[in-house]
C-alpha cells in the first residue's frame, strides 16, 4: 500500500506542486479607493506589460488608463483623454508607445516619455484588439466592425478590411510586418497583405469562433484558438492546419508566443462562468506538453506578454492589480 501511495505522490502530487508554484507574484499595485482595474467587459486586453517588463498599463473602472512601474508599483501616469471609455491597451514592441482604444472608436497613441498624444486615429466601434508591428511602425485595430492598419509615421490608413459579418477579435502581425492575421467572428482566421489589404489565405478549420491569433517568430506558423478550446497550428502561407495542441476545459482567451517560438502562453476563460479568466498554461510547442499550469480563483487575468524568457501577466483582484511571472 505504501508503495502505491509513494508512486501516486511521485507521479501526480510532485508534478502538480511544481506546476502550481511556477507562477510568481512579484508586484502588487493598490488602486485608489473605489477604483479597480477593469476586468473583462466584452473582449480585449484591459492591461498591457511593456516588452522590457518595466511598465504596466491598465484600463480602470473610473474610465481612465493608469500606468505604473511594474517593479516598484509607483504610479507613473494617469491618462484621461475625455475620449469616452477606454476599452483596450497595448504597448509597442519597442516600448516607446502606448496605444489606447476607446468605446466610440477613437485610437490614441501616447509617447511613453512625454505622455503626449502622438497619433489620434479614427477607428471603428467596439475595438477588441490592438497590435503594433514588430518594428513599431504600424498599428492594427480590430473590432466588431472592421480591421484597420495605420502607418504611424504618416498617419495613413494602409488597410481597412472586414469579414462578411461579425468583425474580428484579435490581430497579429507577421515578424517582417508585411502580413497581418485576424481571428474573425464568422469562425475563420484570415491573413492579409498589410500594404494592400488583399486577402492572402483563409484558415477554414474552425466551427466556433477563434478569439486569439499569433504568428510564430519565423512567420511560417500561425497559432489560433478560441471557443473550440483547441490551439491550431497553421501554415500561414496555405492556411492548412498541421497540428493541434490538446483541448482544455476553458475557451482560449489570448495567446502569446515566446521570442524563440518554442513556448506559448495561453489564457483560458471558463466555459461555465464566462467572467472567470484565471487559468493560464505555458505550453512547450515543440513537444506539445504543459510547462506550467496556473489557476487561481478570485483573480482575473487582464493582459500579459513575454519579457525575455518569462511570461509576465497582470491580474485584477478587488482594488489591486497584481503582476506575475512564469515560469
Amino acid at each position, binding site marked *: 500500500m505504501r508503495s502505491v501511495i509513494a508512486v501516486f505522490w511521485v507521479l501526480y502530487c510532485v508534478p502538480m506542486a511544481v506546476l502550481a508554484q511556477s507562477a510568481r507574484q512579484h508586484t502588487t499595485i493598490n488602486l485608489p479607493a473605489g477604483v479597480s482595474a477593469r476586468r473583462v467587459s466584452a473582449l480585449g486586453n484591459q492591461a498591457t506589460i511593456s516588452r522590457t517588463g518595466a511598465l504596466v498599463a491598465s484600463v480602470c473602472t473610473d474610465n481612465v488608463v493608469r500606468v505604473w512601474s511594474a517593479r516598484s508599483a509607483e504610479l507613473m501616469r494617469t491618462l484621461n483623454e475625455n475620449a469616452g471609455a477606454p476599452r483596450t491597451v497595448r504597448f509597442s514592441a519597442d516600448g516607446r508607445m502606448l496605444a489606447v482604444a476607446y468605446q466610440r472608436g477613437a485610437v490614441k497613441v501616447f509617447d511613453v516619455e512625454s505622455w503626449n498624444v502622438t497619433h489620434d486615429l479614427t477607428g471603428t466601434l467596439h475595438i477588441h484588439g490592438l497590435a503594433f508591428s514588430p518594428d513599431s511602425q504600424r498599428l492594427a485595430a480590430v473590432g466588431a466592425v472592421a480591421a484597420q492598419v495605420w502607418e504611424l509615421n504618416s498617419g495613413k490608413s494602409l488597410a481597412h478590411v472586414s469579414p462578411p459579418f461579425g468583425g474580428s477579435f484579435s490581430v497579429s502581425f507577421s515578424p517582417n510586418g508585411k502580413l497581418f492575421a485576424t481571428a474573425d467572428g464568422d469562425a475563420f482566421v484570415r491573413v492579409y497583405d498589410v500594404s494592400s489589404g488583399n486577402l492572402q489565405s483563409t484558415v477554414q478549420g474552425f*466551427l466556433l469562433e477563434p478569439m486569439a491569433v499569433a504568428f510564430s517568430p519565423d512567420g511560417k506558423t500561425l497559432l489560433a484558438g478560441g471557443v473550440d478550446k483547441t490551439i491550431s497550428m497553421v501554415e500561414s502561407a496555405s492556411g492548412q492546419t498541421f497540428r493541434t495542441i490538446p483541448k482544455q476545459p476553458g475557451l482560449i482567451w489570448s495567446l502569446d508566443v515566446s521570442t524563440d517560438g518554442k513556448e506559448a502562453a495561453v489564457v483560458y476563460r471558463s466555459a461555465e462562468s464566462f467572467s*472567470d479568466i484565471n487559468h493560464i498554461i505555458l505550453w512547450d510547442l515543440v513537444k506539445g506538453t504543459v510547462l506550467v499550469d496556473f489557476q487561481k480563483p478570485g483573480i482575473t487575468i487582464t493582459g500579459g506578454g513575454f519579457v525575455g524568457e518569462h511570461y509576465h501577466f497582470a491580474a485584477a483582484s478587488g482594488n489591486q492589480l497584481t503582476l506575475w511571472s512564469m515560469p
Partner: protein
Amino acid sequence: MLTRRDILQKCVALGSVAIAPHFCPEAMLAVFQEREKQVRKPTPPDVLGPFYKRLTPMNNMLRAPGDPGVPLTLSGQVFNTRGDILPDAIIEIWQANHQGYYDLDGYRYRGKLQTDNSGAYGFESVIPGHYPDKSRICQHTHYLVIAPGHKTLVTQLYFATDPVFEGDPAKNYSRDPLIESPELIRPVMLTGDPNEVHAKVQFELCLELL
C-alpha cells in the same frame, strides 16, 4: 402572381377601397402604394458575441419536447429600409439554454430558416437564461440576417421581462454594457394558463440596402 398594384386595383373594383370621385384613381393608387413603402429605420446592430457556430442546420424548432424553461415563440417579418418585405432572407439565431449555457459541442438552441413569401419567420425555443456568472449580461437571443442586396445584420434580441430592467427597459437598458439601443428590448406576451405558460415575442427586422 398579383403585384401590389394589381391588388389595389382589384380592391377599387370590388369596393374595398373607395376613391373620392374628383381624384384620378391611378394617381391615388400610386401615392397610396408609395406611402405604404414608408422608410423604415434599420434594426440597430449588436455584437456577434463569441458563441456563433458555423454550419448551423436549417431548423426552426429549437425546443425539444420536455425541455425545461419557458417555451418561447420568436416571430416577425423582415423588411428593408425602403419598406420592401424580404422573402428570401436567411435568419440564423443562437442562444443559451434556460440556465444560460450555450451548446458548444452540438447545435442545441441554434437554428436557421428562410423567410416566407411575406418575409415572415418563426422560431420555437425557450427563454434563454442569464449567464451563470451573475454578470449583468441580460437574457438574449443572437440574430444573423442575410439577404441578397442588403447589408448583413448582426444583432441581439433582449426580453423586457428581464429582471435586470426592473420593469423599465427604457430607463435601465444601459445596465447591460452591451445594449446600445432600447429598441432591441422587446415586450413579452405571456399566453396559456399558469400551468402551461408560453411566451411570444415579435421582433421585426429591417435591413439596410447595399
